[in-house]
């Protein structure tokens, strides 16, 4: 066959022709299973790798605007499902898959992705106890983010209702499937704008795929960045999601989350009763103490003792009086004796003694001046002569001076 019939292509023309066949649509939106090799995370943000199986290889490129939705990082040897459209890279003449999504293939790969993210976040310190917020002791309003259907909400409301009268703000949240991660992040953000004191993020049990949203990085970061403390209650007791590690407290089940969230009404009741009893007991003891103290004080001022004290004073005063009297008496005696002695001496020099011996005293009347010399009287003067036992009134008849 000569080239005259079909003409001659340039390389570029041929490539474009092939491209037009391959990208017609038949190979669009295709899922392909394989293993990643030759993975390059280019600085441009695009990811290049080869998807291979035992017999074939397929070049793949994931542009960065698709890559930013990846829930895990690609790794050499990872078994994946890739989703994308067929394309031809004209410059190199190779066909390749323009990848729009990559998912781990099989549970083993999910665990790998889980471990990978867990290690990364642990390194960043998202699980560190330092970042755990303290739960309020008595929350007034609790935000519950979970599915509106299913037992989780009912379980939480039941336990909360039984334990403690707290207000609940429920935000319907998708907890499974493609939109779950986004929905959980949104719920956390929205609840952070409300006045809830605490958030319970819950989901019932399920397979690792079912719980997958709780292992997504965006969810982990939303929990970490939440201003409000979060209790995670995802799956059963044995399921540990990344959300559980980041949350401020992990509850094994949704019911347990509700129990952790609020105090128990009965316990609280007992606590209050106990406080009341302590109050009364304390006060009773206090009053008892005061009373006995008062009794002690009262003993100190009993009337009997008071009288005793008084008697002692009276006796003391009596004693003083007696001592005073007797000493005065003694003093008087001494003075009396002294007086007597002086009186005797006085007697000795008294004119009365002289009179009793026969002498007399003459006084001139009317002035009763003592007559000692002849010149003291004149004739006819009246005189009074004092003798030992009386007075004699006389007139002076004559007087004569002794020579």
């Amino acid at each position, binding site marked *: 066959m000569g080239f005259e019939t079909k003409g001659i292509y340039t390389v570029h023309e041929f490539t474009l022709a092939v491209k037009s066949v391959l990208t017609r649509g038949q190979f669009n939106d295709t899922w392909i299973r394989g293993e990643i090799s030759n993975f390059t995370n280019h600085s441009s943000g695009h990811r290049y790798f080869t998807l291979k199986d035992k017999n074939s290889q397929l070049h793949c490129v994931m542009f960065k605007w698709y890559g930013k939705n990846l829930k895990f990082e690609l790794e050499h040897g990872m078994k994946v499902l890739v989703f994308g459209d067929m394309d031809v890279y004209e410059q190199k003449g190779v066909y390749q898959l323009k990848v729009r999504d990559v998912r781990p293939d099989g549970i083993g790969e999910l665990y790998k992705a889980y471990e990978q993210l867990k290690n990364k976040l642990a390194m960043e310190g998202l699980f560190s106890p330092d970042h755990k917020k303290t739960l309020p*002791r*008595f929350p*007034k309003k609790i935000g519950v983010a979970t599915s509106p259907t299913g037992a989780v*909400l*009912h379980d939480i*409301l*039941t336990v*909360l*209702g*039984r334990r403690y*009268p*707290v*207000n*609940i*703000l*429920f*935000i*319907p949240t998708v907890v499974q499937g493609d939109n779950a991660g986004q929905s959980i992040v949104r719920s956390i953000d*929205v*609840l952070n*704008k*409300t006045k809830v004191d605490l958030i319970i993020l819950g989901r019932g049990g399920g397979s690792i795929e079912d719980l997958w949203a709780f292992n997504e990085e965006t969810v982990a970061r939303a929990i970490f960045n939440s201003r409000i403390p979060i209790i995670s209650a995802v799956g059963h007791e044995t399921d540990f999601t990344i959300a559980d590690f980041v949350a401020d407290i992990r509850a094994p089940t949704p019911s347990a989350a509700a129990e952790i969230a609020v105090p128990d*009404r009965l316990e*609280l*009741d007992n*606590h*209050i*009763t106990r*406080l*009341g009893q*302590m*109050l*009364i007991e*304390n*006060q009773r003891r*206090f*009053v008892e103490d*005061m009373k006995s103290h008062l009794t002690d004080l009262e003993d100190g001022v009993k009337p009997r003792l008071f009288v005793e004290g008084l008697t002692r004073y009276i006796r003391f005063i009596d004693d003083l009086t007696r001592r005073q009297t007797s000493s005065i008496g003694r003093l008087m005696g001494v003075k009396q004796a002294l007086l007597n002695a002086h009186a005797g001496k006085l007697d000795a020099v008294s004119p009365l003694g002289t009179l009793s011996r026969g002498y007399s005293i003459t006084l001139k009347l009317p002035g009763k001046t003592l007559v000692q010399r002849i010149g003291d009287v004149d004739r006819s003067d009246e005189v009074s002569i004092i003798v030992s036992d009386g007075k004699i009134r006389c007139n002076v008849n004559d007087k004569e001076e002794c020579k």
Partner: protein
Amino acid sequence: MSFEESLKELEGIVDTLEKGQLSLDESLVLFEQGIKLVRKCNTKLKSAQQKVEQLIEENGEVKEEPFEVAINQV
């Protein structure tokens, strides 16, 4: 005063009284206050009702609305 504040204050009063370094008058005042708080806490706890609301979106705006659930079976 909220239940939480009341309870906290009550606990504080019991603590203070337990230390026993008050005058009779002071302790009586606190005691009376404490008994009142016990009554208040009890009343509040007994009369408190659980209110359940749901966050809903309306015209792109999020608001809270009463939410009826089968909680009444409890």
